[in-house]
């Protein structure tokens, strides 16, 4: 294992696993062009469903809602979660065990329970349900996931760099910003990515904390799917994946340009 490149068998295994991950997605995309509405067998090729999507106001609204909620909840949850991870991984303070347990609860609490309890809570304090209530709920379940991922990254973190920076005159804040944060950044970004994904895909908790007009994409798709998984639903998912792919591509190009200059 002293070569720098991954071994061949490893590469093949990885490719197989990626295949396992992506074949259903490809099937999904292909069947978005199926003429048969109930999408049980392939009958023919059409763009009809895509056209339908662009005129579907409910879907457009749901998409906008989902993105808004995901972005806001991710930013806040990542900040709070990273701070919490730092606290738990490097400090001892009164109430440590209690804090740690509290942080894990959203991971293990059944979603139905969390959803219902939040619904009851919001109605108790007369807080009207809508995009805000959903976002607040999403932050709550995202924080522990961010914290867990960042903690795994922090474990074994070499503090001597930080100590060196402090010896050289930097205070805690500067040390954190210029030494610690960049080093744990992969973990923080991984956590943020996870939080974003969780928010976009959440159904149960969102269901209970949503109000009139604040339908999200999973809620919308779920109700569309109740009838059958029509190609329209596939088309929606395909568009979503493609747009992310394109964004990724743009990001890559931008990065290449950066490294060149």
């Amino acid at each position: 294992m002293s070569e720098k490149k991954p071994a061949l068998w490893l590469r093949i295994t990885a490719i197989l696993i990626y295949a396992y991950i992506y074949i259903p997605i490809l099937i999904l995309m292909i069947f978005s062009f199926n003429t048969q509405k109930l999408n049980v067998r392939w009958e023919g090729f059409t763009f009809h469903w895509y056209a339908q999507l662009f005129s579907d106001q409910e879907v457009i609204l749901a998409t906008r809602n989902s993105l808004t909620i995901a972005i806001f909840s991710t930013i806040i949850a990542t900040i709070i979660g990273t701070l919490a991870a730092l606290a738990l991984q490097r400090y001892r303070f009164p109430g440590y065990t209690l804090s740690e347990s509290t942080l894990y609860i959203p991971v293990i609490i059944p979603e139905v329970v969390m959803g219902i309890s939040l619904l009851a809570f919001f109605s108790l304090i007369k807080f009207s349900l809508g995009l805000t209530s959903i976002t607040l709920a999403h932050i709550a379940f995202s924080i522990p996931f961010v914290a867990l991922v960042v903690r795994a990254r922090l474990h074994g973190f070499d503090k001597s760099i930080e100590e060196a920076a402090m010896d050289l005159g930097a205070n805690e804040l500067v040390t954190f910003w210029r030494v610690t944060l960049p080093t744990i950044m992969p973990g923080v970004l991984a956590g943020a990515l996870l939080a974003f994904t969780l928010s976009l895909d959440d159904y149960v908790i969102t269901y209970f904390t949503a109000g009139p007009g604040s339908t999200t994409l999973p809620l919308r798709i779920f109700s569309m799917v109740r009838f059958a998984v029509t190609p329209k639903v596939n088309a929606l998912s395909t568009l979503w994946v493609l747009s992310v792919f394109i964004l990724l591509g743009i990001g890559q190009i931008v990065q290449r340009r950066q490294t060149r200059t």
Partner: protein
Amino acid sequence: MSNLEHGGQPVVGMHLPTKKFSILRSIRENKRSQGLFLISPAILYLLVFLIIPSILVILLSFMTRGPYGNVVYRFNVDNYLRLIDSLYLRILWFSLVVAGMTTVFTILIGYPLAYYIARSPVNQRPILLFLILLPFWTNFIIRIYAWIMILRTEGLLNTFLQNLGLIHFPLDLLYTPTAVLIGMVYEFLPFMVLPLYTSLEKIELSQLEAAADLGARPFRAFWRITLPLSFPGMIAGSILVFIPAMGMFVVPDLMGGAKTILVGNLIRNQFLVARDWPFGAAASMLLLILTLFFTLFYTRRAGFGEELLV
């Protein structure tokens, strides 16, 4: 620095309240305060949006169901007594088995993948990780339906294998435990790969090279160095997979034909079908306590708590 430290008038014409400043000073100098300061946003947030609602649920578990599914506010422990029954223990056991197998398989499949990414050139890694998460931006239900399309009797896999002549009768895959496992692993794989990757990525290549120089063969180096160092990631991943898997009911319902009741179904049924919220709350509490103990025990053993500032 000196004037401000002494709490006296600063040199420059700023006037800062001395009381506020001593709080900041104590945070800067006192490690315990620092810790509390860092964790307070999380704790405060969860206190309001998790603890208080959870307390509502705990209280609920001590109530009873009224004749129309409403809640009768009369304190009793009937629900918990009801849970002590072989039926519910059997359901719990099934869920443990499903969640356990899902965890094992996500480790078996996720580890090579995480290792591969950790060993790839640095600029490729974000894309490779992203590619794992990308499918999750389709919709959960649709992904499962895609699998149904693949695994069903007249589905794509069977048609493919039959056309190739590899099998003569269609494989009975859908609505079996195998299908459920395929679906579960599919859904939970990223939760294992991401933490594993963050752990593996930190392992210095130089350590492995040193081991090689000292005469250790690749497998031995892996077993004695890489694997133990990746335990934190494996623990984090196991928690992120095992526990939600315990409460999962959508995949077993869709891929398994809804023929079995797991803990997730049980709780969901109480809230959404039988409308016996108190009983559902009690069942949730028991599940919660169980998994909480499991989590704390697991992370403490693995040394999460060892990172202390001296």
